[in-house]
């Protein structure tokens, strides 16, 4: 059995504020195997971004209480010294962000920004680093890379900037690429290009990918494993097939049903009623209970555990497996 590249155990990230403690991440565990793609799905405020910002060490530890373990290739990143973290960031874990318009420094040339990442981790000359940067721009499909490397971010379109970000993140062939909603800010046509690019590069570089998104459609095609997050917790996890064809958690059902389909008569998209929970005052019991159409007494009392459905497929729900199987078959997959 191969070792997971990333093994997160019972991660908790709490932010004390004047209004109370924001439990952004509340007991999250998962693993990513080498070369695998994990899709992390959830609404805004479900804790998916905070989880991975914590993995990267990009959460300000002065303002957050972080507990648990983040084992990356065996080393706990939460207790690792600053120097180790800096050596891992960029070199072994690359990250791309949601908004390519603001994620590149406006004052420096794109090529220089990529070369800076390379020179931070490798002892090579400026000239070689610049050449590597151009090569990376070429590999992510930017036309006339020599010329583009000498341009500033504002001379790039959104899609091109995200390509440049990907070039920067992959310039040191990291073992893990964290993509935090990489396509949310882009045009639909560009979204598909970027996702295909990530797919292609993933096999070229043999990188594991954590794809954070709120769009189940994105993770379906591009991910091996999918993990659904709600209220700072993982509520369902499994293979893409598990989540799509045997979903076992009402929130996942809601997500599936709210995806736009072409083969349906319904004109309005399904919506999950209610709003995401306050992370300061999570509802008692199951955090999804105020919005769940199948809620019953126990949901208001106990927090459901993430229990195996079969194999690696697990879900957190108090309904019996038979009931959930029935609802999924009859109400969700039928209509979805």
């Amino acid at each position, binding site marked *: 059995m191969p070792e997971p590249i990333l093994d997160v155990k019972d991660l908790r990230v709490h932010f004390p504020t004047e209004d109370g403690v924001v439990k952004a991440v509340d007991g999250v565990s998962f693993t990513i195997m080498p070369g695998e793609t994990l899709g992390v799905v959830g609404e805004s405020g479900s804790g998916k971004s905070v989880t991975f910002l914590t993995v990267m060490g990009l959460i300000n530890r002065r303002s957050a209480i972080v507990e648990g373990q983040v084992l990356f290739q065996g080393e706990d990143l939460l207790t690792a010294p600053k120097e180790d973290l800096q050596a891992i960031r960029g070199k072994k874990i690359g990250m791309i*962000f949601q908004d390519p318009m603001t994620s590149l420094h406006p004052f420096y040339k794109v090529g220089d920004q990529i070369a800076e990442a390379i020179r931070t981790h490798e002892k090579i000359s400026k000239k070689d680093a610049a050449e590597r940067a151009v090569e990376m721009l070429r590999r992510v499909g930017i036309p006339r890379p020599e010329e583009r490397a000498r341009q500033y971010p504002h001379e790039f379109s959104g899609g091109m900037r995200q390509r440049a970000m990907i070039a920067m993140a992959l310039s040191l062939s990291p073992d893990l690429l964290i993509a935090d909603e990489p396509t949310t800010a882009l045009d639909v046509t560009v979204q598909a290009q970027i996702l295909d690019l990530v797919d292609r590069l993933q096999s070229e570089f043999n990188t594991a990918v954590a794809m954070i998104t709120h769009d189940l459609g994105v993770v379906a095609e591009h991910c091996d494993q999918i993990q659904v997050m709600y209220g700072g917790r993982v509520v369902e996890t499994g293979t893409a097939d598990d989540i799509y064809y045997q979903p076992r958690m009402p929130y996942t059902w809601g997500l599936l049903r709210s995806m736009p389909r072409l083969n349906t008569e319904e004109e309005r998209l399904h919506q999950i009623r209610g709003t995401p929970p306050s992370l300061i005052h999570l509802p008692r019991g199951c955090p999804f209970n105020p919005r769940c159409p199948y809620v019953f007494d126990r949901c208001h009392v106990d927090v459901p555990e993430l229990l195996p459905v079969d194999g690696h497929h697990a879900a957190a729900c108090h309904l019996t497996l038979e009931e959930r199987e029935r609802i999924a078959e009859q109400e969700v997959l039928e209509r979805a």
Partner: protein
Amino acid sequence: MLRYVIRRLIWVVLVLVVIVAVTYSIFFLLPAGDPAVRFAGKAPTPERIEQVRVAFGLDKPVYQQFYTFTKNLFLGDQYGWPGLGQSFVLRQPLKPVILERTLVTMQLAIGAAIVWLLVGIPIGILSALRPHSLFDRGAMFFALVGISMPVFFIGPLALYLFSYQWEILPGSGYYPLAEEGFGPWFGHFILPWCVLALLYAAFYARLSRANLLDTMSEDYMRTARAKGLPERRVIVHHALRASLVPIVTVFGLDLAGLLAGAVITETVFNIPGIGQYAVRSVFSSDLYAILDVTIVAAIVVALANLVVDIVYAFLDPRVRYT
């Protein structure tokens, strides 16, 4: 870029003409009495007043006086270029007076600017790096006090304490570097520099703190950290550059404002600068002196704006002028 600069310089010339016109109008509309009467001496005869009027060119219509002055300004007069006219009070050419006093004010303003940049910006940066720390709270308290202290209060207080009470520094006055040497020159300038700089240092500390805090929360700062850059480089290379650019704008205008005369500081410390001269000229209705000071101020402000815009284009690649 060059075309842009040339176009801006042409604008400066136009602005100058307008400013001279406005200053002329104000002067002649002002109920300050007939300048010819004022400068004709005690109990003048009508002939004497007429004589003075002719000597000063006040007998000609206003528009003709304006035309002559403007023409001389750009083409030079009998005292050389630029034609700044002669003083009613001194009955001497104004050019050397204006030049000398501008130089004095420049020493005051530039010295103060160096002090406030060296004090204000580092304080702001250190505050922003540790927001809400003891240092930050202390620094921002100092800034609040600094901003609230007028020069006419803190100036005499500083003079009293440092030169009268403790006798650490010499008193007020201006001691030219060339004639008196470095010691007296520096000794007499250090207090005015610091007093004038206090207000600005406080303001710049707050400004650079706010800008740096803003920049630190930018997405590209997260990218810089995600690249694995050492924190030092993240701050110096990525944050500071972006956060200090807006300060260039403010600095250009602040310095220009002071070069046009730091009236109160010059008065408190008895420094013969251009601001002090401007006030004196207004009180004595010395038309051409007022005009000259106004023109110097206008030129300095207009050029400072131009320099700021050019520097901005070099610092921020998104800004391009055509």
